[in-house]
């Protein structure tokens, strides 16, 4: 950290009024996370979330963000997340009516359209509702980003996002359909347009980000990955993701700062693979318990004709488990709890953090910059949290 900064040599003739740090010409983003500390945070967050039947999740998410933001460093100073759990909670409460209306609409379509007017009208209205929902997801994604940026600071200077959530949501929806119609070929176009909209509306202090993304350039890289997408079961997408990240970084600019990334697809793949193996290991005891205790009972039930052969196993699971011996129940419950708990902790420690580390440490910044030119902005920040994004479970961490 300290090695990246230098104190100005006192030059009597042109000495600045203060001892402002003269930044180096080039710097990397640094990541300072610590697996043990993150694991403890994840366990405490999980326990509190369980104890409050899910309500602590807003504060849990806030603590994760404080951790991740605070461990990303640039030119000797760490980033900072200034949001509060209460803001997320209030934002969520404000959107409950929307969620309720949407839920009620899905319910109502079933009873008042699907049943009386038949499947054609029923499915048409369900499709319309799905489109509205997807639109709202785009809207929520942009709103959530606005909130997160407004709560992001570096050296006390806040980031911000302008632009319209509705405008973003329309693009999001349009590119979604275009992607389906073109079997995914339009993905680079969607990425470029949506990222351009988001980044061009992103601010740090009074400086606005500038982008130079071109869909065609990205498409030329993408087409090869796309061609081998099916034969490799989607694996090429991992390498494309790294390539896309490098492309976007290289073509983004803030004031006199230019970026580049050395993110490698192989590194992303190792993270996915490692996490996948951990998921399998975590699921193994549960799988074994189901194989030994549940499966035979299911087979017996179906053969005896007590339940129809096409019965939904999910509906049968609980009665079957409840009719078992205490030992079998303990084995099942224990392995299930182990699976769920370890997964939510593994996802943080062995998936999310490695990804953040890989992305962060891959970034180089050319600093032809006097940071005095970046001033705090007077733009007001949104007061409440992410709202809809939480309802759609989009906010991630």
């Amino acid at each position: 950290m300290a090695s990246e900064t230098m104190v100005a040599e006192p030059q009597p003739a042109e000495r600045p009024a203060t001892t402002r740090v003269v930044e180096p010409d080039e710097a990397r983003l640094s990541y300072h996370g610590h697996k043990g500390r993150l694991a403890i945070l994840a366990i405490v967050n999980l326990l509190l979330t369980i104890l409050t039947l899910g309500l602590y999740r807003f504060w849990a998410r806030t603590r994760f963000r404080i951790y991740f933001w605070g461990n990303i460093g640039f030119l000797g100073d760490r980033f900072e997340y200034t949001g509060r759990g209460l803001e997320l909670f209030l934002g969520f409460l404000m959107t409950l009516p929307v969620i309720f209306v949407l839920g009620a609409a899905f319910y109502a379509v079933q009873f008042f359209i699907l049943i009386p007017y038949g499947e054609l009208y029923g499915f048409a209205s369900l499709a319309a509702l799905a489109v509205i929902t997807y639109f709202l997801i785009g809207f929520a994604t942009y709103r959530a980003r606005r909130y997160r940026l407004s709560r992001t600071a570096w050296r006390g200077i806040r980031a911000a996002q302008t632009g319209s959530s509705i405008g973003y949501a329309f693009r999001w929806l349009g590119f979604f359909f275009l992607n389906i119609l073109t079997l995914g070929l339009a993905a680079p176009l969607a990425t470029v347009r949506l990222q351009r909209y988001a980044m061009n509306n992103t601010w740090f202090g009074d400086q606005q980000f500038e982008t130079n993304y071109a869909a065609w350039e990205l498409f030329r890289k993408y087409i090869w990955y796309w061609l081998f997408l099916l034969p490799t079961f989607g694996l090429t997408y991992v390498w494309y993701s790294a390539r896309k990240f490098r492309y976007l970084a290289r073509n983004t600019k803030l004031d006199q700062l230019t970026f580049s990334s050395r993110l490698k697809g192989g590194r992303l793949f190792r993270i996915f693979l490692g996490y996948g193996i951990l998921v399998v290991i975590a699921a193994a005891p549960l799988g074994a318990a189901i194989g030994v205790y549940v499966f035979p009972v299911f087979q017996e039930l179906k053969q005896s004709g007590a339940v129809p052969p096409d019965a939904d196993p999910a509906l049968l699971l609980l009665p079957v488990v409840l009719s078992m011996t205490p030992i079998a129940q303990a084995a099942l419950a224990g392995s299930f709890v182990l699976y769920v708990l370890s997964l939510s902790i593994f996802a943080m420690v062995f998936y999310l953090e490695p990804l953040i580390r890989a992305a962060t440490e891959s970034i180089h910044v050319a600093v032809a910059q006097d940071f005095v030119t970046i001033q705090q902005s007077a733009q007001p920040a949104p007061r409440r949290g992410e709202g809809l994004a939480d309802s759609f479970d989009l906010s991630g961490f």
Partner: protein
Amino acid sequence: MTVFAARYSDGRSASVQIVAVRLGPDGLSVYPAENDGGNRSGLATWPYDAIVLIDGRHKRGPVRLTVSDDEDARLTVEFETAAFLKALYAVMPRVKKSHPIGRGIAASFAALIVAAGLFYAALVWMPPLAARVIPESWEARMGEQTAEGLASLFGRLHDGAGYCTNAAGQAVINGLTRTLARAADSPFAYRVRVLNIDMINAFAASGGHIVVFRGLIDSAEHPDEVAAVLAHEIAHVEEHHVTEAMVRAMGTQIVINAMLGGGGDTLAGFGHNLINTGYSREAERAADKRGLEILRAAGLRTHGMTRFFQRLKEAHGDTAAALGIFSTHPPTEERIRSAKEQIEDGNPALSGGQWQALKAICTD
């Protein structure tokens, strides 16, 4: 007095300067580093009770501070952090924290208490109230929707099976229903239909709509059994069980979803099923009891209830018992027991001729 080296940003620009920090009597003073000896004019002085600790609760990493009357300013101590924190806590034992963990825990538990209250209201308090407030004409319309919907659903599943239309059979079941409804002194206009499906089942929708499956009539050995089932379903309608269950299902679902957010669908469905199962078993018990009262008030024999459940047990056997905890009806054994205790004499529900007509309701 100890001096600490630190990095200071004034919150107006993204530049940073190396400063000297001194913990003096009036507060924490920030000086340009090279100004240390001579010129005493500082960059800032932060009163101790206005200092907010952003980072610095763990040993690794820097200590970051801000001040509540200049929230954009940042002071970062990178070296000798332990000594700095010790010195700071010595002058200000309760340094404010930017994200005190206790506040989040307190707020989420407070929200939990509010949610528990809402859940209790949705579960216990709202459903009977709503069932009383909702006009009977609405209930009838909802019941009509449900009955039609189920008929078309089963129709799709069992190649176009629909309601049986034999006029003589329909007249018999209408008559029997009328006798029972009059005995029950219920405000609803009942409409009973027989669905042409080979399942031993019957259900009541809200507002007087009752659907009996053909399999139930086929398997009945005595008209008193059909009468008992009808009495049971009339009891459901009369006590608004279906409307209550709908309101309860909706209310509890809303509260659970609100608590768990978008991610907890499985869990929400699970908890919701468990709760409503408990309630509907309670409702079945109440309907069994009230059904017997209705049969008695109509002057009919009550043994149909016993016989019918006995056969239900023979048909479904022990697996039904195994599934009992999750099924909406109380265990069959238990229902037979409570019905047996109440056998008394009375009139047969239908004459031989009427019974033949009812059995033929699905033939045209």
